[in-house]
């Protein structure tokens, strides 16, 4: 690729660029790791009769999950009509799962679910609590479960710790 040449000619510090690329790569792996997907698969198998609401703020991951598990997806790009249809059908039980990015953070009435799954969420406490509150909405005699899937040995552990602090 010609761009390699340009990068060198651009007069930037090549080491700085390398470091940046390495960091980006690590983050991508952390976000999209295969083990995370497999962990999710286990959860899905364990809760075959449950209604699952899956969150991740990364649209890429939303689409990977939607594609792999044929779960209806809602991102900020989903048309209002289709979004409404998916949520209605989740509410009425036609669909038992929905995967979504942060589009549902504010102002949208999220239907009840008995299993919540967070994949690589934000480190912000407030947004997290809101999400949690929505899906853990008390249903008579039922207890809701929330999973958070994080990659070991990545920066996400810290993110998750920060988040749990906000909960207490």
């Amino acid at each position: 690729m010609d761009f390699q040449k340009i990068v060198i000619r651009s007069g930037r510090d090549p080491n700085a660029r390398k470091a940046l690329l390495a960091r980006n790569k690590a983050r991508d792996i952390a976000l999209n790791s295969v083990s995370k997907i497999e962990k999710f698969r286990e959860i899905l198998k364990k809760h075959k009769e449950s209604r699952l609401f899956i969150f991740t703020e990364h649209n890429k991951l939303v689409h990977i999950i939607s594609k792999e598990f044929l779960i209806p997806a809602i991102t900020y790009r989903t048309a209002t009509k289709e979004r409404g249809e998916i949520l209605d059908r989740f509410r009425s039980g036609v669909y038992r799962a929905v995967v979504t990015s942060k589009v549902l953070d504010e102002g949208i009435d999220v239907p009840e679910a008995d299993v919540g799954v967070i994949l690589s969420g934000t480190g912000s406490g407030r947004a997290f609590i809101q999400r949690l509150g929505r899906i853990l909405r008390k249903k008579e005699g039922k207890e809701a479960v929330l999973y958070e899937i994080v990659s070991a040995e990545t920066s996400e552990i810290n993110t998750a710790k920060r988040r749990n602090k906000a909960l207490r």
Partner: protein
Amino acid sequence: MLTSDLLVTKSYKGKIEPVYAKLDHENLEISGSLIDLFQQHIGKTYGELIEEIEGIEEIDYRLIRGLTQLLERRCVIEMNSVLEPTTARRSIFEECKGAVSDVKERKEVIDRVASKLSVEPDALEKALWADMEDNLIIEEFQTITPEALLRQYNLSLTQTLLFKATGMDIQIGDNYQHVFRKIKQLGLMYSIQDGKIYLDGAVSLFKMTERYGTALAKLLPTIMRCSRWSLKASVLKKTMQGKRIYDFTLDNTKPIFSVEPDSDLESFDSAIEKEFSLLNFNSWSVRREPAVLKAGQYAFIPDFSLERNRIRIYVEIIGFWTPEYLKNKIQKINMLKEKEEMILLVDKDLACSGSEFKTDNLIFYERKIPYLEILKILRKYEERQVTDDVEMLKNIEIALEGSVINLGEIARKYDVSLDALKIVIEQNNRNGYLLIGDQLIDDHTLKAVNDELNTVKKHSEAIIIFDKYRIKSQQILDILGYKVKWIGLDPENAEILKA
């Protein structure tokens, strides 16, 4: 024009300027490589292209993103799918109740739905997310040279800066008609003083300065098409200390822009104008934006003119606008020398009474062009011209020579309307001539024709005789006391009979 996040400016001492891309080796190489990337991705997905671009954009983020925006506009990017993606998804999600947990189950669902919809499983998989931006296909790409792209980028930067302009004054050395036409099309108000065109007043016209800025940005290429030009704009910029106005200046000495030829000269301001241009007003010919009229310190370009003989009537169509705009327009029209020759078509929805116009020719319209009413006004002008011409002809001796005289030629010679000439001729002594149709025929010729007609029977033979004498109107048959008897529908069989 670019999105404003891609605009980089430098400002100092109250002046502002975009950071232009120099046409140097490095930028040309970046530009060329991006063009190559687009070229290589014809037939591939938009996602693949963007991924490649994201991989290099840190070389110069804003430049690369900016060039990418311009290049994207040169692409045809379309969805490529045998099925409507939302339908495909709905069918799949219904089939699996919203989730599958293993690969085998997934394949079964896809296969079942594929056979239900009678498509190949592969095609169904593809269709499922074919509407995602990343999966759209780059069908076409219209290439450009690296230098032209950089020049276009610099123009776009300037336009993007002008979005935030609150006013602008320009000086141009030529190309007036185009610039004024564009100013008019964009609905900009302006004044002329000492050879400078001040584009302003919009802030008081509508609250949205962005809209005004957009109009100024759109005007820029037209200004740049002049061979000599300069501009000065006031640009609003948010700073740490709040909003501030900066000066932006530019002229034709900076050779880092490129302007594509104007393609929208034919475009119309509104559907109603388009409709008007297609109408046929009898013998009146329609011309669009025919002249630049002077209205005090303003220039005024009417939408259309209707022309016939020596009369030229201007037509101005006033579609929906704000009361201020209308007031301004009326003031301008009232300053025109030509205001008597102006037909104003005003949208009925406008809150405006006719009394504000110093003209009789005001027609309120509703949706459709008031065709008949316009014809009525035109007839008034036609009649007035005939009266004037008759008055003039009465005072001169009309020279009539020859046995068959075409009055059209005479009318042209004296520069009067044919109707007027005929009226005068009918009123005066005709000295041995008879008026038939638009011709004067002398008694001698009339007699000769009559004699020849006695020898023939068929209508077609009579016509040959008329042609020989260059007589155009068959009214002559009537005058000489003949009737045409039709036998069947074939004119060849028609006969003439002495009545």
